[in-house]
């Protein structure tokens, strides 16, 4: 393969991977934005989203088939269900802790993560579950570069979800309220914003985006298991930090950058693909050292 082939091939791989990272990172960053919590259970919602997407697809495939239309229906159902699970988690586990020190709520998040993982572990026996679809192998040949239709649909879907989120946050009264709460919660209350409702909607949207990524990843890679959320949770966290935690465009950018870095990182001589996780976390450390606020993050300055 020529150098150009390698570059364009890894570009596509990086975009696919980056789309997953970005979708999960968005939830991380939105939840951090409103309640300043690193929700370490977020990766597990991606995993639960994969399983519920799989169950939904099994339920609807006889009607709509198991190709993209069926997967979209399953993804939608999974998003709604996981959105509500996210809201329930917030109400039960995090809401009573909001006035507590941040460390307590962080530990609560780790506990929620363990509960989700072990619930699915108990239900599945820890086996890989085959996520069977009727996805085809077709694609476009651009010179020597092959892009599958699946990759295109996947990246496009992630793009549409991100554009919808961007419009929601920037063009609607509720999105404005969400930004207001993330900047100054007390002031938002004084302006008549129902902060509890804003937090609930934020968890719903963040969790639903993770479920979308989980369903698509399951369908794309063909298998799901109870531990699949762990690593992507850490990667999404990395992506959110690279972009600037709390920043929505930052999470999208961070996800794509991390996906591309990993894809290209595997091509560095003497560094095999088994080193790609080391590569991404090294990038996290570099960002934290060189620009702790991330690419699009703003430094928090307390005004006296």
């Amino acid at each position: 393969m020529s150098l150009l082939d390698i570059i364009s091939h890894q570009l596509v791989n990086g975009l696919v991977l980056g789309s997953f990272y970005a979708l999960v990172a968005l939830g991380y960053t939105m939840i951090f934005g409103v309640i300043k919590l690193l929700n370490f259970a977020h990766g597990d919602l991606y995993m639960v989203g994969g399983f519920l997407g799989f169950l939904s697809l099994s339920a609807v495939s006889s009607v709509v088939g198991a190709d993209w239309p069926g997967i979209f229906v399953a993804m939608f159902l999974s998003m709604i269900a996981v959105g509500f699970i996210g809201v329930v988690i917030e109400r039960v586990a995090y809401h009573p802790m909001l006035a507590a020190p941040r460390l307590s709520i962080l530990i609560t998040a780790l506990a929620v993560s363990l509960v989700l993982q072990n619930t699915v572990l108990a239900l599945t026996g820890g086996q890989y579950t085959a996520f069977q679809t009727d996805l085809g192998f077709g694609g476009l040949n651009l010179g020597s570069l092959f892009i599958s239709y699946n990759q295109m649909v996947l990246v496009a879907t992630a793009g549409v979800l991100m554009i919808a989120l961007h419009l929601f946050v920037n063009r609607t009264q509720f999105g404005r309220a969400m930004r207001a709460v993330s900047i100054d919660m007390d002031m938002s209350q004084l302006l008549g914003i129902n902060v509890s409702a804003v937090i609930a909607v934020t968890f719903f949207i963040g969790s639903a985006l993770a479920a979308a990524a989980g369903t698509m990843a399951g369908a794309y890679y063909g298998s799901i298991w109870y531990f699949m959320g762990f690593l992507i949770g850490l990667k999404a966290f990395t992506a959110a930090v690279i972009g600037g935690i709390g920043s929505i465009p930052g999470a999208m950018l961070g996800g794509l950058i991390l996906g591309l870095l990993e894809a290209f990182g595997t091509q560095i001589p003497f560094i095999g693909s088994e080193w790609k996780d080391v590569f991404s976390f090294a990038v996290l450390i570099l960002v934290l050292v060189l620009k702790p606020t991330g690419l699009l993050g703003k430094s928090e300055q307390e005004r006296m």
Partner: protein
Amino acid sequence: MTAALLSLSGVSLAFAGNTVLQNVDFQVAEGAVVSLIGPNGAGKTSLFNCITGFYKPQTGTITFDGQALLKLKPHRVTAAGIARTFQNVRLFREMTVMQNVMSGMHCRTRSGAIAAILGLPSQRAEEAAIREACDDCLRFVGVTPDEYDRIATTLAYGHQRRVEIARALATQPKLLLLDEPAAGLNAGEKQELIALIRRIRDERGISVLLIEHDMGLVMQVSERISVLDHGAMIADGTAREIQANPKVIEAYLGQEDAEAELDF
């Protein structure tokens, strides 16, 4: 005297045994401009926080427009018709002037989260109506349209204060609480503020309650003045009555200087 719009009765507040407010009785009449003065640490801002629902007093009642406030969460208090500004301007960083004011309209809009997620036409129409109402509030306080799309915290300090007042007006209050609105303003800006406070009352029919240390402004703008010292209401009356009240002079200057003329 017209009926009381806001009425506090027997309000006491303590934090870990430290008394902040003791047995405070206080009223704001409908359509009035009232000032709350007192030495630093007298409990003025705490009183504001009780009214807006951030602090829950241990005893007493607060009634606003016939409604008991103490059970309400802060956002419900705002919905009931009370808005406030802060001593230090608290505009939303990273938001433009217009977006800041629009966030004040939240409790007056009907389209919920579902309509917003779906981007329904009704939601778009409402968005336009919100923008128009906010434009009206901004013009009212004297912010010009060329400043609407600037990041709010980059404006000159005096203008940030105006934006903050516009944002409070956007919540469509019946009572506006201003916490030291003249702090950091120069003499000219203070005169403009006095005119603005009068217009808020006269043109919009909004009652105003302000905490202020600038006695010149307080004396010019308020119909009634209440004085708080060490958490207790020690005097209440017109500007002239307060200026002559020995308890007030004592509170400000300390006992030895009680004879001295208070420099208003």
